[in-house]
C-alpha cells in the first residue's frame, strides 16, 4: 500500500518501525499505538459534532423558511465555535445536597457510552478501531452504560423533577432496547456472524434489500434510544423543566448536549454499516480511502433523514411511546426474526434443487426475503386496520333547546 491509497495503515506502520528502532519492545509499542489510535478516534468524534451541529441548524432554518446561522464565517460554518466558548466559560452551579462524585460522573458516563461505540465501526476494509468477534453484542452493552448515566444524573441532582424525568428517560431507553436487539439479530442471521467486519463483508447485496422491516425497526428504536424527536419528551422544555439535565450547567451540560448529537450521528453510521453496506462501493477494496468516502456519504444521507424527521413530526406522549414499543414493535420484531430464520433455512435447503448461477444466488435470496418482508407489511397493515379504535364522535347529539313560550293572545296588541 502506498500513502495515497491507505494513509492510516501507512502511518501506523511507519510509527511502529520508528518506535521499535528507538529500542522499545514490541508489546510497549503496540500499547502506545493503541492509545494514540483511541485518542484520535475520540478527537475525531468531537470534531465531527462541530460539523453536524452546524448542518442541523442550517437545515432547521431552511425548512422553516429562514436562513439559519450566517454571520460567523461564510454560511455560518464557524457558528459552533462561539457556542463552545460560551459553554466553556459558564459557571458550574452544583445544587446543595447533591452527591458530588455521582453528579460529576454522570455526564462522563453518558459521553463515553457514545464514544465507545466508535471503536468497532469499520471505516474501510483496513481501518477499524478494533475487531471484536461479538461486535453486535458490544453495541448493546455500550447502550446499557448510557442508560446508567441517565439514571445517575437524575438521582444525584437532589431534585424531585430531575428524578421523575430520569425515571421516564430510563423507562424509554430500556424499553426500546428490546426491539433494537431483536432487529439487530436479523443481520446476524443473514450474515452468519456477530462481528461487524464480517457483516460488512457479507453484504454483497445490501441488507436493506433483504430485510427493510429490520432496518426500519432498528432505525426507529435507535432514534428512541437517543431521545430524538419525535421521542424527545425527556428534553422538551415544556415538560418537567429539562428532565434529568435540569441541574447541570456549563461544560457538564455541554457534554450531555454534545453526547446527544454525537449519538444521533452514531446511529446513522450504525444503520449504514449494518444495512446499507458500510464502506462498500465501487473500487473500495482496492483503494481503502475511497471506502471512507462512501461511508461518510451514506452516513450523512441517513443523518439528513434523521434531522428531517425531527423537524417535521410532533412529540409523542410517554404512554403513546411505550404502547408503540411494547404492543407494536416488539411483536413485529419477534415475528420478523422467526420468519427470516424459516425462510433462510428453507432457501438453503432447496438451493441444490434449483440450478442457479453462482453469481445469481445472493440476488435470488434477496428477492425471496424481500417478498417475505412485503407480505409481512401487508399482513400488519390489515391487522392494524381491523383493530383501529373507533373514532370518537366530536359533534354532540342534538339536545332539547329551551324555547320561549308563545305569549298569550291577550298581550299581543
Amino acid at each position: 500500500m502506498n500513502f495515497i491509497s491507505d494513509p492510516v495503515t501507512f502511518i501506523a506502520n511507519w510509527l511502529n518501525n520508528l518506535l521499535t528502532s528507538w529500542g522499545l519492545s514490541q508489546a510497549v509499542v503496540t500499547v502506545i499505538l493503541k492509545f494514540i489510535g483511541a485518542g484520535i478516534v475520540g478527537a475525531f468524534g468531537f470534531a465531527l459534532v462541530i460539523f453536524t451541529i452546524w448542518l442541523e441548524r442550517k437545515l432547521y432554518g431552511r425548512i422553516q423558511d429562514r436562513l439559519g446561522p450566517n454571520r460567523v464565517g461564510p454560511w455560518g460554518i464557524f457558528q459552533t465555535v462561539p457556542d463552545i466558548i460560551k459553554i466553556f466559560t459558564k459557571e458550574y452551579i452544583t445544587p446543595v445536597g447533591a452527591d458530588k462524585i455521582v453528579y460529576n460522573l454522570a455526564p462522563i458516563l453518558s459521553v463515553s457510552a457514545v464514544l465507545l461505540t466508535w471503536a468497532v465501526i469499520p471505516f474501510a476494509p483496513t481501518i477499524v478501531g478494533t475487531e471484536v468477534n461479538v461486535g453486535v453484542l458490544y453495541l448493546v452493552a455500550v447502550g446499557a452504560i448510557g442508560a446508567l448515566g441517565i439514571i445517575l444524573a437524575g438521582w444525584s441532582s437532589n431534585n424531585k423533577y430531575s428524578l421523575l424525568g430520569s425515571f421516564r428517560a430510563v423507562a424509554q431507553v430500556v424499553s426500546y432496547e428490546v426491539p433494537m436487539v431483536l432487529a439487530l439479530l436479523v443481520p446476524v442471521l443473514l450474515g452468519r456472524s456477530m462481528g461487524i467486519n464480517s457483516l460488512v463483508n457479507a453484504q454483497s447485496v445490501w441488507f436493506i434489500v433483504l430485510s427493510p422491516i429490520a432496518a426500519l425497526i432498528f432505525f426507529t428504536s435507535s432514534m428512541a434510544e437517543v431521545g430524538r424527536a419525535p421521542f424527545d419528551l425527556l428534553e422538551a422544555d415544556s415538560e418537567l423543566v429539562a428532565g434529568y439535565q435540569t441541574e447541570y450547567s456549563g461544560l457538564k451540560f455541554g457534554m450531555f448536549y454534545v453526547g446527544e448529537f454525537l449519538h444521533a450521528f452514531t446511529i446513522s453510521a450504525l444503520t449504514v454499516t449494518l444495512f446499507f453496506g458500510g464502506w462498500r462501493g465501487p473500487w473500495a477494496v482496492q483503494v481503502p480511502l475511497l471506502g471512507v468516502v462512501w461511508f461518510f456519504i451514506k452516513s450523512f444521507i441517513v443523518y439528513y433523514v434523521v434531522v428531517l424527521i425531527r423537524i417535521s413530526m410532533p412529540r409523542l406522549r410517554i404512554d403513546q411511546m411505550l404502547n408503540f414499543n411494547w404492543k407494536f414493535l416488539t411483536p413485529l420484531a419477534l415475528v420478523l426474526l422467526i420468519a427470516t430464520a424459516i425462510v433462510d433455512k428453507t432457501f438453503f435447503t432447496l438451493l441444490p434443487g434449483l440450478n442457479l448461477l453462482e453469481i445469481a444466488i445472493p440476488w435470488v435470496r434477496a428477492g425471496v426475503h424481500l417478498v417475505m418482508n412485503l407480505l409481512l407489511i401487508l399482513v400488519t397493515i390489515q391487522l392494524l386496520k381491523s383493530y383501529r379504535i373507533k373514532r370518537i364522535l366530536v359533534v354532540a347529539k342534538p339536545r332539547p333547546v329551551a324555547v320561549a313560550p308563545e305569549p298569550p293572545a291577550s298581550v299581543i296588541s
Partner: protein
Amino acid sequence: MTAEQIIFLIVAVVTLVAALSVVISRNLIHSALWLILTLFGVAIFYVLLEAGFFAVIQVIVYIGAIAILFIFAAMLTRRVMQDTGPQSNTNWWIGALIALFLLAGIVFILLSWRGSTTPLAELENQSGRLSQLGLSLVSPDQYVLPFELASVLLVAGMIGAIFVAGDKKQ
C-alpha cells in the same frame, strides 16, 4: 511477574475492595454503584480468561439490567432522600467470623489440591466456538433441556414480578 499477572492483581484488588464497599457502605445507592464496579471487574476477568462473549453478556445482563433494577428498587423504597444509621445488624461479627473461617478453609483446600497448577492449554477452534456453544444449547443430545427450563423460569419470573409488584387498582 509478567504483565498479565500485574493486570490480574490490580483488577482483583480493585474488585475485592469494591465488593467490600458494597457490603459495608451506609448509603444504599452507593452500595449499588460499588456493585456496578464489582460486576465490571468480573467482566474484565472474563476477558482475561478468553471468554469475551461472557464479558459482553455480563455487561448487558448484569450492569445494564440487574444493576439498574437495584437502583430503581433502592430509590422506590426509601422514605426520606438520605439514609442514616448503621447498615449492619447487631450480630454482624458472627457473620464476619463465619465468612473468614469459610475463606480460610477453601484456600487451604485449594492450595493442597494437585490440580491447582494445571498448565494453560491453547484453545483450538477459536472461530467456531460461538456457533458450537449455540448448537449445544439447542441440540437434543446436549443441553436443550436446561435451556428450555431456564426460559420457562424466565417467563414465570416475569409474570410473577408483574403480578406481585403491580398496582392493584380497585
